[in-house]
């Protein structure tokens, strides 16, 4: 855990240093505002100011210190401490992803199970086709079609096209505020959910199919247990384990996907922050966001491991760490 964390900081640092040129050349370079001679002076001055004239290991240690103390410097665009921005934006992305996560798991586990139980019958084939289509559908297309047809003059305007809440929603009492918020979240959550749903359903179905073919299921059936007991107690309990580990692949994909979805729906979350930082080359924010995203991913993996141990009695943390 800790070495990986250190590794993430090394990696982000390396990306920022390996890149050709330096931020000042991009900002002020040839064709920029300064002529060659004054630019060289300016660059030296800036390098000294930002500590870029020191040797690389020292630079890394300075960066590490900043990570550990959560002091990522100021954002060039917003003129505010980066960590403040992240504190504002992170809960939004987390809420969005958590809602999507819960929906994905609650919908796809029953769907996948039913598909496996009805193997090669109508429901299985129908759901497989749907799932496969959803899996390959780009979120950009879905998002824009939803905005185009449900938020504007083109068809109906049932949902707001952008943002998280209506104007002056802060003045509303709690429940109207909540409905307003949920009303804004419907379309983004749909976009964030469907591809993960497709992926997870496929995995649940595959896992279920495998355990339904296993010997212990045949044994359970031979004992004369009811179909329900066999499916839920014997097959399902065993096929749920890989489904939990999938969290590890689903989470980073969803975090990445939220960049696109927050951009489409103009939601001021982490993804939007990353997008803005990259367009304006706001390097402090870029580095901070990458580090925090890695950190969140690690936390997700940790939860996955814990859930794994809970679900599978054969796994324990005490015996071999």
């Amino acid at each position, binding site marked *: 855990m800790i*070495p*990986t964390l250190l*590794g*993430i900081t*090394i*990696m*982000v640092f390396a*990306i*920022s240093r390996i*890149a*050709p040129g330096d931020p000042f050349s991009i900002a002020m370079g040839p064709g920029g505002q300064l002529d060659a001679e004054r630019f060289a002076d300016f660059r030296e001055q800036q390098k000294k100011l930002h500590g870029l004239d020191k040797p690389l290991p020292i630079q890394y240690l300075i960066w590490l210190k900043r990570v550990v103390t959560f002091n990522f410097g100021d954002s060039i665009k917003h003129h505010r401490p980066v960590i403040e921005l992240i504190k504002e934006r992170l809960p939004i992305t987390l809420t969005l992803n958590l809602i999507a996560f819960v929906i994905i798991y609650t919908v796809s586990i029953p769907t996948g199970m039913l598909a496996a139980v009805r193997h090669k019958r109508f429901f299985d084939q129908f759901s497989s086709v749907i799932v*496969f*289509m959803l*899996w*390959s*559908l*780009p*979120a*950009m*297309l879905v998002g*824009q*079609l939803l*905005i*185009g*047809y449900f938020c*504007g*003059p*083109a068809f109906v305007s049932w949902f707001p*096209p952008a943002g998280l809440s209506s104007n002056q929603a802060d003045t509303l009492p709690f429940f109207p505020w909540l409905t307003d918020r949920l009303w804004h979240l419907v379309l983004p959550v749909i976009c964030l959910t469907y591809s993960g749903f497709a992926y997870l359903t496929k995995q649940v179905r595959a896992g279920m199919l495998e355990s339904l*073919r296993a010997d212990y299921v045949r044994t359970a059936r031979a004992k004369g247990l009811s179909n329900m007991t066999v499916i839920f107690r014997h097959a399902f309990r065993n096929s749920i384990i890989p489904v939990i580990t999938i969290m590890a692949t689903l*989470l*980073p*994909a969803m*975090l*990445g*996907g939220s*960049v*696109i979805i927050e*951009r489409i729906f103009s939601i001021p979350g982490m993804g939007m922050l*990353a*997008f803005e*930082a*990259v*367009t304006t*080359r706001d*390097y402090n924010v*870029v*580095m901070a*966001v*990458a580090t925090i*995203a*890695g950190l969140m*991913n*690690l936390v997700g*993996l940790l939860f996955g491991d814990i859930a794994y141990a809970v679900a599978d009695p054969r796994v324990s943390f005490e015996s071999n760490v």
Partner: protein
Amino acid sequence: MIIMAEKTAQQKSWGVSYGEMVRREFAKNKLNVVSLVLIIILFALAVFAPFLANDKPFMIRLDGKLIFPLFASLKASDYSILLAAAIGIWQLILIRRNRRNIEPSIRGHVLSRQLLINASILVAGSVLLYVFVPRRLDATGYRELISSGRASDAIFAPIPYGYARTELEVREQPPGKEHWLGTDDVGSDVLCRLIYGSRISLSVGFVAVGISSLVGIAIGSVLGYFGGKVDFIGMRFVEIMMAIPVFFLIITIVAYWERSLFNIMIIIGLTTWTGNARFIRAEFFKLRNQDFVQAAVSLGLPLRSILFRHMLPNGVAPVLVNATFGIAGAIFIEAALSFLGFGVAPPTPSWGQMLSLGVSTTGRFLWWLTLFPGVAIFLTVLAYNLVGEGLRDAIDPRLRKAA
């Protein structure tokens, strides 16, 4: 060294090779075949793009003289794409012939020699093309010449527009007779840009996956073969690569690097190899203790030979499957990057960038700019995913037994 066989008598005794078995299993599912055909059509579109959509006519009579502007305007890159396609088709024909004429045991050697020869022809040809084909820029308005009466007898491509055309008077037009799929914000023909956009998607897909497969195989094979400390340190590195969500990692790099097609290919390739490395590592763990590997080691063969001649061919199947999904993923990532404005710079056509114009800055919704590029991405990704799925089912022996 090529042993030519007497066809009919010996063919049956060769039996069915592993590749043949996978191929038959793959072809059983009609959907797999359909998606393969779709991929071939996309390839054809990408290769023949200049002949399908071009604002220069194939042939035109200008001031009484017959000229061929389209052929004269082709760039070295167009020619080398055509050359690559021709060599690719020739290689496929060779593989088919090998299957008939060459004994399975030496087919691998023959194939690698053919691949080497063809690759060198391709490289040499491309270099020659880049040296000898002049860089030409033909900005003549041939259609204006026709309407003014100076030129006649023109034969245009089916879509007589260039991909970088700006004609503001026809901007944001819905699909119609003139422009089959409408026009974009600067008046370029959407269909034309879609066709050229397939070049970007396919090249990003293949080059990025090529890089990620090579890096993944190199790292994964070393980790899997040596195990122990090397594996422990290497796997920590892989874990770190996997810890940062890929898309965040990519846009972080994009923030620092110049945004060109070449860089995007490299960035996608260098950030997505971890899956391949893990697959190969797992396979090599299994293979390491097998007799034929032990034999190769005790014969004192060089490491390169043990890893890549003896072990790799036996463990490469999951990477091939993963590569197919990887192409879909890379196309997806490229589209997303272009959508966010981090992709190739306009006027180079890219599906993701076109899609981003669907909701214009003024908030107007242009359905044709959303639907057509989006569906293009969807169909391409779907086709590669289906082929990958089909390949995996065909390769997986467990499923073959069950079926």
